[in-house]
């Protein structure tokens, strides 16, 4: 059966988007860069989200549409995007889109259903949960008193311009107090923009609602928390501190309240665990209830920074290693990478793709790269060493993922080898520390921008993951944000954190020569067990 498709014409732009049954046009477009205007949270009250139908078949108008749109407008095909929930493929015209902003709604797959409400926050009911990632920021707005998620946003971390590697950003910030302040202010301003965007579109009234925000909960990896608060960068760059917590708390919280225009907000930065092991891992552990999982459960948060936790039934062994550029997902929106792993198909000879070919993109999502490399291995085109077979000429192999055509270069393979070796070696080290073998693993929970959509067969073939049965591997996106939301909705968030913190045993792999040996053996593109 063909998927239902939405075709949207907006000026010179045309967008094709899969329709998710039950979702409104507005909700579908909120995950893209082409958004409708909005000011009422999708209730149909403001009437700002008008779109015109270009196809005949569509569900009938709702009461809100009949109230907001004259019979003549309805006759001409005008509808409200927040009310129109298509059950057929259709084409629309959007003549007056919302001004472009760097924010989009998170895909529903990244949001977990959560129960919890805080009647004590009736006077200042709004709450904000923030996951500070190296590449992306994820934010949700809550009515905490009612226990209802009002909106979500994700966008690119503006500090990307100072390097995709957190170390480069820390180094840049340490250059001078002015730079550090500039980076922190830029990030805080970006977060405020996202909050205001949600308030404007989902609550109506924008900045006038800022005083209604009673709580703001922030988790993130240590480097990002440090760059947000302007504290701890120097300590973080010194290996002497990598086994202990790094203080990333703002010196003057009231100054933040003033800067953000949040006079009533309790601003909470959840402390990182130790060194580069951030509070995003802590939040992920909470999201998955790792302490209640069977012993020998492994949790991997796979992204630019790899964070790992192994629960052995008594102790939570946690660590962190850099994943590098191969694991930096360019977009958390699956629609931005059509097909991803399922649709990667090798093209026929000639093998070389011209780099200047306009249709050729060099970058693929990490999942597509994994799938493609596994496919090249299966076909004997790529050797276990990460080199092409002698029959392959040139420095790249062309492949296609649905509409995208790209080139897998040896450099991309090398980066993938490094990232997967870092992950596999870290898993092996944690298992050794807990005196466990990969065969003992009961469950693997995967999260993070890559973990939630990693192609399992390819990951196992290439040795990124131990050969655990698929049924024991669980993938869930947005665990750090979910854990942060749990803390946001807790009357005493410290009481939720304390039991986890008591069981934590941080492990700094940088000081372990054995990690380096395992890293080298795991560079080979072969199953995990063969590299042990």
């Amino acid at each position, binding site marked *: 059966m063909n998927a239902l498709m939405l075709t949207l014409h907006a000026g010179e732009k045309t967008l094709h988007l899969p329709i998710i049954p039950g979702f409104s046009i507005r909700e579908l477009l909120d995950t893209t860069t082409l958004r409708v205007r909005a000011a009422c949270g999708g209730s149909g009250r403001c009437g700002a989200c008008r779109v015109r139908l270009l196809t005949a078949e569509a569900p009938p108008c709702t009461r809100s549409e009949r109230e907001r749109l004259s019979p003549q407008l309805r006759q001409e095909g005008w509808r409200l995007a927040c009310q129109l929930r298509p059950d057929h493929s259709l084409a629309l015209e959007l003549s007056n889109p919302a001004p472009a902003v760097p924010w989009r709604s998170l895909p529903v797959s990244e949001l977990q259903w959560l129960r919890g409400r805080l009647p004590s926050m009736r006077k200042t009911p709004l709450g904000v949960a923030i996951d500070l990632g190296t590449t992306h920021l994820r934010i949700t707005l809550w009515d905490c008193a009612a226990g209802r998620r009002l909106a979500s946003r994700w966008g690119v971390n503006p500090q990307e311009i100072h390097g995709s590697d957190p*170390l*480069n950003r*820390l*180094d840049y910030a*340490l250059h001078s107090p002015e730079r550090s302040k500039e980076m922190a202010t830029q990030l805080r301003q970006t977060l405020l923009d996202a909050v205001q965007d949600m308030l404007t579109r989902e609550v109506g009234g924008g900045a006038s609602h800022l005083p209604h925000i009673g709580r703001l909960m922030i988790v993130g990896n240590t480097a990002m928390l440090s760059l947000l608060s302007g504290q701890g960068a120097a300590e973080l*760059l*010194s*290996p002497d501190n990598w086994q202990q917590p790094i203080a990333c708390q703002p010196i003057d919280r009231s100054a933040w309240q003033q800067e953000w225009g949040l006079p009533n907000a309790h601003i909470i930065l959840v402390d990182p665990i130790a060194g580069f092991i951030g509070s995003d891992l802590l939040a992920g552990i909470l999201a998955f209830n790792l302490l209640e999982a069977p012993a020998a459960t492994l949790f991997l948060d796979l992204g630019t920074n790899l964070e790992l936790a192994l629960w052995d039934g008594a102790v939570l062994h946690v660590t962190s290693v850099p994943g590098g550029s191969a694991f930096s997902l360019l977009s958390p929106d699956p629609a931005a990478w059509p097909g991803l792993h399922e649709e990667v198909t090798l093209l026929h000879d000639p093998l070389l793709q011209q780099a200047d070919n306009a249709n050729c993109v060099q970058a693929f999502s990490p999942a597509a790269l994994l799938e493609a490399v596994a496919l090249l291995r299966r076909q004997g085109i790529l*050797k*276990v*060493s*990460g*080199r092409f077979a002698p029959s392959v000429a040139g*420095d790249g192999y062309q492949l296609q993922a649905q509409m995208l055509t790209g080139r897998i*270069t*040896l*450099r991309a*393979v*090398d980066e993938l*080898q*490094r990232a997967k070796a870092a992950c596999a070696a870290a898993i092996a080290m944690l298992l050794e520390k807990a005196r466990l073998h990969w065969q003992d693993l009961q469950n693997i929970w995967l999260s993070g921008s890559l973990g939630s959509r990693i192609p399992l067969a390819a990951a196992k073939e290439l040795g990124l993951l131990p050969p655990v049965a698929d049924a024991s591997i669980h993938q869930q996106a947005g665990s750090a944000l979910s854990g942060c939301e749990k803390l946001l909705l807790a009357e005493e968030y410290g009481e939720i954190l304390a039991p986890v913190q008591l069981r934590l045993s941080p492990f700094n792999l*940088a*000081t372990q*020569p054995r990690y*380096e040996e395992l*890293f*080298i053996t795991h*560079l*080979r593109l072969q199953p995990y067990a063969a590299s042990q």
Partner: protein
Amino acid sequence: MIPLHSVCAMLETYITAYNNAVFDTDRDAALQVIAQALAAGHTPEEIVFELVIPAVEEMMAQLSRDLDANLAQHFMTAQIAAEVTEKMLEQFKQPPKTLGRVVIGTARGDLHSLGKRIVMGCLKTLMVEVRDLGVNVPAERFVEEAVAFDAQVIAISSMMVHTANGEQGCRKVRRLLREQQLENRFRVVVGGAPFRFDEQLYQAVGADDWAADGVSAGKVILRQIRELSP
């Protein structure tokens, strides 16, 4: 008796097979080639000087031409060569002549030792004595150990910008050498990713030379030793 040209041809075959194995990061296959060469009657001295060292030199040239050579290949080249050399040296009739001495470590604040291990592997194979100072090495220790070891070269590895360009790494080593009037006695060679991104950085931090990767570092260090002690 096998004619000389046949011996050479046979060694060529072994060198090719050995290089192919190393290029494929296949340690077992590489060691098998060495075992075959030994079984065919080649002496440990021949294995090292006529097989392993030419192979390393060929790999250095090959990897410097091949910008897409991966980390595993660099590591295997050095690791296997060092392993074989170490084993063969134990069986040498006379200890070989040392070409020079090097102290090596990662800069203060840097725990990345992989690059350093690659350099050490290559240097050992090239008959350079190496004193490994480990990771996170203070500048003072680089200088003290270089004096104590009577080294010609101080090799400093930095994988992060702040350790490559910071005040506690090569810059401080240079300052100490200047203050202690030791600049004519030692050459300072740096390596690591930050020096690849900024090819002028090595001069800015006061180094005499730099290497783009671990394997070519062996060649650069050897050149500096030869310039200092012709």
